[in-house]
C-alpha cells in the first residue's frame, strides 16, 4: 500500500519536474526530477523484492527414488517412488531369473544449494 503511494507520488513529482523544466525553472526541475527518480527506484525495488519473496514461499518437493535390485543376477534399476514401496519389500519375479526382486533403497537426491564453508 505504502509502496504504491510512493510510486504515485514519484510519478507526480516527475510530472511537476517536467513542467518546471518547460517553464525554464531549472533548479526546481532538477530537485523534483531527482526526488521523483529516487523514490520511483525505491518503490520498484521494494516491489521486486516482495515478488521474489512470494516466489520463495513455494516449497519445492524433490523426487524420491526407489532402487530395485535382483540379488541373484545383480541387476539394479532406479525408478520413481510409488505409494506402497518400502525398503526390503519383495516385488514380482526378476526378468532374467526366477528370484524375486527386492527394493534395496528409497532416497531423495538433494542438490546442495549452499556454498560449502571451507574454514
Amino acid at each position: 500500500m505504502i509502496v504504491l503511494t510512493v510510486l504515485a507520488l514519484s510519478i507526480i513529482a516527475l510530472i511537476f519536474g517536467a513542467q518546471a523544466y518547460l517553464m525554464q525553472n531549472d533548479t526546481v526541475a532538477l530537485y523534483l526530477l531527482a526526488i521523483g527518480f529516487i523514490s520511483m527506484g525505491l518503490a520498484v525495488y521494494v516491489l521486486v523484492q516482495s515478488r521474489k519473496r512470494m516466489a520463495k514461499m513455494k516449497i519445492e518437493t524433490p523426487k524420491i527414488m526407489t532402487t530395485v535390485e535382483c540379488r541373484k543376477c545383480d541387476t539394479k534399476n532406479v525408478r520413481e517412488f510409488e505409494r506402497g514401496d518400502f525398503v526390503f519389500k519383495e516385488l514380482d519375479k526378476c526378468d532374467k531369473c526366477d528370484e524375486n526382486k527386492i527394493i534395496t533403497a528409497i532416497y531423495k537426491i538433494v542438490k546442495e544449494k549452499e556454498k560449502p564453508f571451507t574454514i
Partner: protein
Amino acid sequence: MAFVAGTDIVSQLLYAASMLFFVVIMLYGQKIQMYVMIREVENSLRKLKLIKEEGRKTTIETIKEIGKPETDPSPRVDRYLEYFTISPQSMDPAGIVNKLDHILDVRDSRFKDEVKLMAPASDEVQVNNLENTLEAAMALNFIYRVVRHFYIQGKKTLSPYVIMQLQMILPLVMKEAEAYSSALKAFAYGQPIGDGVGALVAAKLIYGSKTRKVPKDCVVATIPFEGRTALVVKARGPGGNVGKPGDAVKELIEENKGKIASVIMVDAGLKLEGEKVGEVAEGIGAAIGGPGVDQYKIEDSLVKYKIPVNAVIVREDIADAVSPMRKEIADSVDSVIERVKSVVLERTKEDDKIIIVGVGNTIGIGQ
C-alpha cells in the same frame, strides 16, 4: 503557479523537510523499526499458515484415499489438530519416568483409535503412517498458533522485547516448520525419513532371518555376526513407528540373564553446521532420542548387569532427520555396519552375545 516558487523557498523547504525527517527518526525511530519487524514476522506467519493449511489438506486427502471413510473426515481432523498432552508434574521427580511413559502410552492408543475411526479401511501399517502424518500436521498447527500468538501480542503492545524475541528465532522456526512439512508428505506416502537410518541398518542386518516380536512394536532377529551372536532389534516396519526399544532391550537382557557382552546402538545424531551429512561417528552411551523414557529404561537395565554400551551415529540435521531420507544417509548404511563390526571385534570376544539396536522411525523400512 504555486509550486514553481523561487529557488530560495525550495531549498528552505527541503531544509525544513530534512530537519523534520531527523526529528521523526529521533522520536519514532524505534516504533518504525518495530513496524518493519512486525511486517517481517507477518510475512513469515503468512507462510506458516500456508504450510499449515497445505499439511491439513494433504492429511485429509490421504485419509480419504487410504481410509475410505463414509463421512467427511475434516471436522475430526480439525479436532485432532488441537489435541494437547500435559506432561506429568515434576515437583517431586521420583517415578516421573513411569508417569510420562503411561501418559505417552495413553496418548498413543488414543491417537490410534482416533485414526481407525477416521480411516476405517486402513490396515495396521497405514494406521501407523496416518498417525505420524497427523502428528506432523499437529506440530505445524502448534507452531502456527504460537507464532500467531506472539505476533498479535507484539502488535498490540508494540513492545520491542516481544517482537524482537519472535523475530530473532523466526528463521529457526521457519526451518523447523518446513522440515515438518516435508515430514508430513513423507509420512503420508510412507517414505523412509532420515531418522530411520538406525532402523535401516538393523533391517539390513536382519534381512532374510526369522524375526519375532518383542514389546513394544519391536522385532528382534538372532543372527551370526563376526563369530558372535547378535540380537538385532528394530521397530516393526514398514509402518511409521519408533516402537519402544527400551522395553525390548530390557526384555532381551532379562531373557539372557544379563549375559550380554555389549549393547551397540545405531541412531541418527544431530550434526553441527559445517559437518557433512551422512558422516559416521562413534561413541559411548545410549544413543536414543525422544522424551527420554527409553533411554532411561535402557540405562537402567545396563547398570543392573554392568553391560557396556556403544553408540554409532549418522550425522544429519533436524530437517534431514524428519524429511525423506537423503541419498548420503542411505549410502552411509554400509559404513555404519563396518563401524559396528570393528566395535564388536575390538570390544567383545568370540561366542559372546551382543545386542544391536537400530533406533529410529522405521517408516518405509521393512525387515
